[in-house]
C-alpha cells in the first residue's frame, strides 16, 4: 500500500493524487451545491417570514384609517319627534336616523324615488345614528342647533376609497357620483380609526373593534397567570429540591414532558368535559378559558423553573445548610430568589404562548358573537385570537383588513412580552 500511494505510474495504475484530482472538481462542485442548498433553505424560511408579516401589515394598515363624511346636521325636534327635551326616555328613543336622512336629503335635493333615496342613505353607517344619540343625550342644549359633523361612512364606501376599485365594488353608479360630489367639496376624509381600539365586536365592519376581545384575553390570562405561576413554581421546587428519586417522581416527570406535547385541542376537550359538563361552569367564561390555558402553560413553566433552579450552584445550598438553615429555609431564602428571574422568563414565554392560543378556546365556547365588553371572570367573553378567527371567516370585505389589524395588535403584544423576557434574562442572568 505504501509504495503504491506515493509512487508515480510504475505499474500502469494511477497514483492516489491523480485519483483525488480526477474527482476533485466534482467534489468541490458538490460542496458548493450543498452549501447553496443550506443558504437557500435559510433564505426560504426568512422569505416566508417576510411574506407572512409583509402581507399582514400591508392588508392591516388601512384598517387603522376610516372614511368619514361631513354633513350638516340640524337637531330638529320635529324630525327627532321630541316634545319635551327634559325627558331622557324621549331623548333615548328619538328618531336620530331621520336627522341623517334629512341632512343627506338637504345635501342632495334632486335625489327622488324610494330606491335612490335608500341607496343615498346607505352611504352613512348606522354608527352615525348612535353617535348623534350620544351627543344629544350628553348635551341636550344641542337641540334646535345646526352642527357640521364628520360621520362614519358605510363599510362599502370605506372599502371603495381604500382600495380605489374602478368598478366601485358594491356601490352603484349613482352612489359613486354622489361620493364624487362629496369628495370635490372636501367632505370626505380619512381619519384614525379609534373605534378599532375602543369598541366591541359588531356585524358592521366600520363599527367593530377589538376592545371586547382584548378585555376577554386579559381576564383569561389573569386567571392563567394567577394559577400557573404559583403552581408551576411550587411543582418545579418540589421536583428539583424535595422529590425522592423513585417511580412516582419519574411518573410525574414523564407526565409533565408529555403534557407539553399534547395537542392544544385535546386540552379543549378536557375543558369541555370536565369544567363545563362535570363542574357546571358557564360556557364562554374567561375563568374556564384560564383554567384550560393553565393546564397548557404549566409544563412550560415547570420545565423553565427546573432549569432555573438547576442553574443555582450547589455551593450556595451547602453554605446555607452549613450554618444551620433547614432545607426549606435554604430553598425559600436562597435558591428561590436566585432562580426567580429564570422562572419569570419562562412564565412570560408561557403567557405569550397562551395569549396566542385559539383551538382550546373554541371548544369551550369562547367563539360566540359578543358585543358587550366582558366585566368579570364569568361574563361571556371572547379572546383576541378567537376574534381574529371570527373576523377571518366573515364574508364582508371590510373585515379582511380588520383581521389583519387585529393580528398586528396581537403581534405587538407578543413581541413586547418576548422582549420583556429577553430583557429580564439579560438583566438578571448570572454566570457562576
Amino acid at each position: 500500500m505504501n509504495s503504491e500511494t506515493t509512487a508515480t505510474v510504475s505499474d500502469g495504475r494511477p497514483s492516489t493524487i491523480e485519483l483525488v484530482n480526477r474527482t476533485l472538481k466534482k467534489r468541490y462542485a458538490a460542496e458548493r451545491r450543498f452549501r447553496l442548498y443550506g443558504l437557500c433553505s435559510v433564505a426560504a424560511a426568512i422569505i416566508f417570514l417576510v411574506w407572512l408579516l409583509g402581507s399582514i401589515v400591508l392588508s392591516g394598515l388601512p384598517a387603522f384609517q376610516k372614511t368619514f363624511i361631513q354633513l350638516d346636521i340640524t337637531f330638529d325636534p320635529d324630525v327627532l319627534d321630541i316634545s319635551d327635551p327634559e325627558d331622557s326616555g324621549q331623548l333615548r328613543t328619538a328618531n336620530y336616523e331621520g336627522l341623517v336622512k334629512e341632512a343627506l336629503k338637504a345635501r342632495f335635493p334632486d335625489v327622488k324615488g324610494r330606491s335612490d333615496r335608500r341607496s343615498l342613505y346607505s352611504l352613512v353607517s348606522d354608527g352615525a345614528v348612535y353617535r348623534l344619540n350620544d351627543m344629544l343625550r350628553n348635551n341636550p342644549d344641542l337641540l334646535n342647533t345646526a352642527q357640521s359633523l364628520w360621520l362614519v361612512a358605510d363599510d362599502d364606501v370605506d372599502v371603495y376609497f381604500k382600495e380605489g376599485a374602478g368598478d366601485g365594488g358594491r356601490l352603484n353608479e349613482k352612489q359613486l357620483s354622489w361620493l364624487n360630489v362629496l369628495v370635490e367639496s372636501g367632505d370626505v376624509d380619512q381619519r384614525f380609526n379609534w373605534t378599532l381600539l375602543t369598541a366591541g365586536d359588531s356585524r358592521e365592519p366600520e363599527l367593530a373593534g377589538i376592545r371586547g376581545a382584548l378585555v376577554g384575553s386579559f381576564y383569561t390570562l389573569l386567571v392563567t397567570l394567577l394559577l400557573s405561576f404559583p403552581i408551576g413554581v411550587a411543582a418545579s421546587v418540589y421536583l428539583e429540591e424535595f422529590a425522592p428519586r423513585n417511580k412516582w417522581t419519574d411518573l410525574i416527570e414523564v407526565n409533565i414532558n408529555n403534557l407539553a406535547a399534547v395537542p392544544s385541542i385535546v386540552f379543549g376537550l378536557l375543558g369541555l368535559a370536565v369544567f363545563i359538563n362535570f363542574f357546571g361552569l358557564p360556557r364562554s367564561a374567561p375563568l374556564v378559558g384560564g383554567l384550560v390555558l393553565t393546564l397548557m402553560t404549566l409544563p412550560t413553566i415547570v420545565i423553565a423553573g427546573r432549569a432555573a433552579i438547576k442553574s443555582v450552584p450547589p455551593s450556595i445550598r451547602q453554605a446555607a445548610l452549613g450554618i444551620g438553615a433547614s432545607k426549606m429555609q435554604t430553598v425559600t431564602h436562597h435558591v428561590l430568589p436566585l432562580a426567580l428571574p429564570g422562572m419569570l422568563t419562562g412564565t412570560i414565554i408561557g403567557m405569550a404562548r397562551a395569549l396566542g392560543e385559539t383551538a382550546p378556546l373554541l371548544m369551550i365556547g369562547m367563539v360566540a358573537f359578543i358585543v358587550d365588553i366582558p366585566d368579570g371572570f364569568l361574563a361571556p367573553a371572547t379572546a383576541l385570537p378567537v376574534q381574529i378567527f371570527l373576523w377571518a371567516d366573515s364574508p364582508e370585505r371590510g373585515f379582511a383588513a380588520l383581521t389583519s389589524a387585529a393580528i398586528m395588535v396581537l403581534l405587538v403584544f407578543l413581541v413586547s412580552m418576548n422582549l420583556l423576557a429577553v430583557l429580564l434574562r439579560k438583566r438578571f442572568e448570572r454566570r457562576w
Partner: protein
Amino acid sequence: MQVSTLFLVIAGLVLFAYQLGLRRAIAVAGGPAKQRSLHSLPSYYGLWAAFWCGLPACVILLLWVVCQDAIITRLVVSGLPEQYAGLSSAEMTLVINDIKNLATGNIVSSQTNPAMEAAAAHYVSLRQTGRTILSVVVILIVFAGMLLVWRQINPGLRARNRVESVIKTFLLLCSVIAILATVGIVLSVLFESIRFFGMVPITEFLFGLNWSPQIAIRPDQQASSGAFGAVPLFTGTLLISAIAMLVAVPIGLMSAIYLAEYAHRKVRAVAKPLLEVLAGIPTVVYGVFAALMVAPFIRDLGESVGLSVASESALAAGLVMGIMIIPFVSSLSDDVINAVPQSLRDGAYALGATRSETIKQVVIPAALPGIVGGVLLAISRAVGETMIVVMAAGLAANLTANPLEAVTTVTVQIVTLLVGDQEFDSAKTLAAFALGLVLFVVTLCLNVIALHVVRRYREQYE
C-alpha cells in the same frame, strides 16, 4: 355574606391568627428575652396558627363554591310540584334555567306560573340560607383553629418542622396536578368515546370509508346518513401532514446544517432569532395567512398552468403548516448537530473529506437518532395542529391523495362537531371525543417514541 367578602374576612382573621400565635409563643417562652427556649423561631408559631385558621376554612369555602349550585338545584327540583316529575332531562334543564332566571330577575323564555315563581323564591331563600350557614360555619372553624393552636403552643412544640411539612405537602400537591391533568384528559376523552362506541361499532369507526356525521331528522332526508367511518379523516390528516413534512424537513434540516456548520457567527446571530420568530407566531395567524393569502395564490397559480385547484386545497394548508414547523425541526436538529463531538469532524477532515462530505457521511449519521426524534415530534405537532386546517382545509370528508383537492382532518372535524350547540347524548357530539381519543393516543405514541430515541442518543456522547 358574599363569598368574596367572606374570603376577605378569613384573610383578615388569618393575619390576626399569625400575630396571635407569634405573641403567644413569646409569652409562653417568658418574654422576648427568653425566646431561645422556644423550639422554633416565633414566626413559625405564627405561621402554624395561620395555617390552622386558614386552611380548613378555605377548603370548606372552595368545596361550597364548587358544589352549591348542584345541591341547591337538586333541592329546588325535588320541591317542584308533581306536574314536573315526568319531564325529560332536556326539558328539566329548560325549567331550571327559567327558575334561575326568575330568581335573578332576568327575562324568562316561557310563561311563568305560580309553581315556578314559588320555586324561584325557594331557590333564592335556599341560596340565602346556604350563604348564612356557610359564613357561620367558616368563621366558627377559624376561631376553633385559633383556640386549638392557642392551647397547643408551648416551648416544646416543633412548629418549624410542622410548618415545613405542610408547605412540602402543598408543593407535592402542586406537582401532582400534572398527573391529574393527564388523568383528566384520558378519562374525559375515554368515557365519551366508550359511549360513542356503544352507538357506533368501533370497527366501523376505524375502518369505515364514509364520514358524514349529520344525522337525519326526517327519514327521507338526503345526504344525512350519519356515517362515522373515519378513514377519510385519517388520510386527510396524513396528506396534509405529509405535505407539511415535505416542506419542513428539508428546509429545517438544511438551515440547521447551514447555521451550525457554515454560517458566519454574525449571520447565525441574525438568522437564528428570525427563524425563532416563525415559531412564536400564533397558529391563528398562520391560519389567516393560509386561508386569505396562500390559498388564493396557489389557486391562481394552478389556474394559470391549467390545473383546477380547490380553494381549500390540501396543498395550501400543508405548505403553511410546513412553514410553521420549520423552526421546530431546525432548532431540534441544531441541538443534535451541535452535540456531535468535534473530534468526529476533525477525523473526517484529516482523511481529506470536504465539509459537505463530512456532514453527509459523519455528522448526519451520528446525529440521525436525534434528527429522527425531532422529526417524529414535528409530525406529532402537524397531526395535532388545529387552527391552520380549520381555516384553510375543507370540511367535507374526501378520500383522495390529490393535494390539489380539499380534504378534511381529524382536528377540523372535532372543531366543527363541537362548536355551536351540542347535545351530549348524540353520536355526532360524542364522535368528536372519539376523534380526540385517537388524536391523543397517536400523538402520545409519537412523543414517547421520539423522547425515547432522543434520550438514548444523548447517552452515547455524554
